[in-house]
């Protein structure tokens, strides 16, 4: 008996339509059962389709916002073991007001623990964003900002990394499966000490994956360009000059030291980023930052 292709197609169609409201697993079970009954696919084939869907659906999406929050706290602690926080209330208050206002206007304004910002006490040109919305910017990077508009662009770029889940995507696939398998096994039961130990080990591994990618090796160029584009869109929406990002990159280009372990290593060259930004956006008419905004910016960052 020939198996007509279109039946397989229809099974896929059922799958796609049903998934709109049911879960992938349930839909697969339904669709494969139909296929099996119709004699289109054998029982073993049906089993294997079901199993692979289970594996696929155990993805990053299965981490709850709460779990992402704990991952973020740990990644933040690793960042702070590399650079100490800059204990200056005035500047921290200022970047939180600017950053949280930007985040509130973004597409994903609400995350489990909210967006929070802090300045790092370092001359390096560096910034980090944890999956949970903790954002760190060095004094060295703030010095690359001639205006509040430029600083807004940096914070919006980091908010972009959070929302595009770039940090979470650095976790090795095997690790994701491992963690979610432990969870699936124990279900609603209380965790035993063995499971806690097992999860803590996986957790530790996930933190290393993210920290390695974020701090040591940098994300892919694609991720950085995506975050730049997200930044342009967000600052425009709030009412900042979108040229701020290019202004900042122009200063950064002069300040970055070749061979440095900061943005010099982890990010595409500022010139490449500018070219990429300009290829995606119309030329913006340069708008001077209002004096009142410039005054408060200089006052807030002080002798950074």
């Amino acid at each position, binding site marked *: 008996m020939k198996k007509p292709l279109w039946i397989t197609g229809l099974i896929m169609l059922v799958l796609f339509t049903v998934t709109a409201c049911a879960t992938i697993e349930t839909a697969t079970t339904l669709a494969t059962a139909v296929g099996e009954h119709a004699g289109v696919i054998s029982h073993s084939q049906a089993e294997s389709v079901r199993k692979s869907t289970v594996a696929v659906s155990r993805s990053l999406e299965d981490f709850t916002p709460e779990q992402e929050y704990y991952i973020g706290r740990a990644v933040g602690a690793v960042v*702070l073991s590399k650079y100490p926080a800059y204990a200056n209330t005035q500047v921290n208050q200022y970047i939180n*007001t600017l950053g*949280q206002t930007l985040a509130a206007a973004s597409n994903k304004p*609400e*995350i489990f623990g909210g967006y929070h*910002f802090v300045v790092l006490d370092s001359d390096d040109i560096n910034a980090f964003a944890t999956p949970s919305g903790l954002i760190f910017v060095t004094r060295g990077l703030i010095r690359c900002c001639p205006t509040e508009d430029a600083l807004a662009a940096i914070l919006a770029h980091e908010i972009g990394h959070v929302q595009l889940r770039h940090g979470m995507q650095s976790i090795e696939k095997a690790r994701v499966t491992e963690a979610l398998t432990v969870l699936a096994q124990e279900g609603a039961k209380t965790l035993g000490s063995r499971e806690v130990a097992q999860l803590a080990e996986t957790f530790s591994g996930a933190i290393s994956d993210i920290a390695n990618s974020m701090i040591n090796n940098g994300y892919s160029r694609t991720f950085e360009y995506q975050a730049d584009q997200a930044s342009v869109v967000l600052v425009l929406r709030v009412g900042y000059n979108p040229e701020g990002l290019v202004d900042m990159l122009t200063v950064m280009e002069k300040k970055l030291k070749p061979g440095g372990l900061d943005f010099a290593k982890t990010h595409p060259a500022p010139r490449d980023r500018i070219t990429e930004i300009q290829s995606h956006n119309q030329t913006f008419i340069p708008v001077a930052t209002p004096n*009142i905004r410039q005054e408060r910016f200089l006052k807030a960052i002080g002798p950074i």
Partner: protein
Amino acid sequence: MRRTQFIVVGLALLGILFVPICANAQETLSVQVKEGELRAMPSFLGRIVARVAYGDRVNVVENRGAWKKVSPHGGKIQGWMHTSALTTKRIALKAGQTNVQTGATQNELALAGKGFSEEVEAAFRKGNKNLDYTWINRMENFKVSPEQMQNFLVQGNVIPPPEGGRP
């Protein structure tokens, strides 16, 4: 063989038919952020009228763009929440809490305090004594109110373009 084909076609059509019904049936959602806020207007610049906690169930009263006017279960208060603070999943706050799980498959259910949790964080910190969470906890206390945001924008002469939007 013909009959089988009809069954398959019928099921496919049923699948299509059911999609809009499911979409309309979603009227009760769960709060998926640690501290949820209900606002007087569909905007982050809106005054906070009430607070809801992680896992709380809310009924949707009205939809406007990315905002939903909701009413917490069993309460009379109404307020606006951004959709990113809400999920269709039910959140079981305690392991083994049976009422929440009734009729919910694992994928519809998020177990609070499970997986990478406070408990796992404690175990992780025990093995990584060099990590200091002091500033992490301090950062979480940096909060900006709707009034502060509003004043910040006005005082800095930050004006959104016509197609833009306030937070």
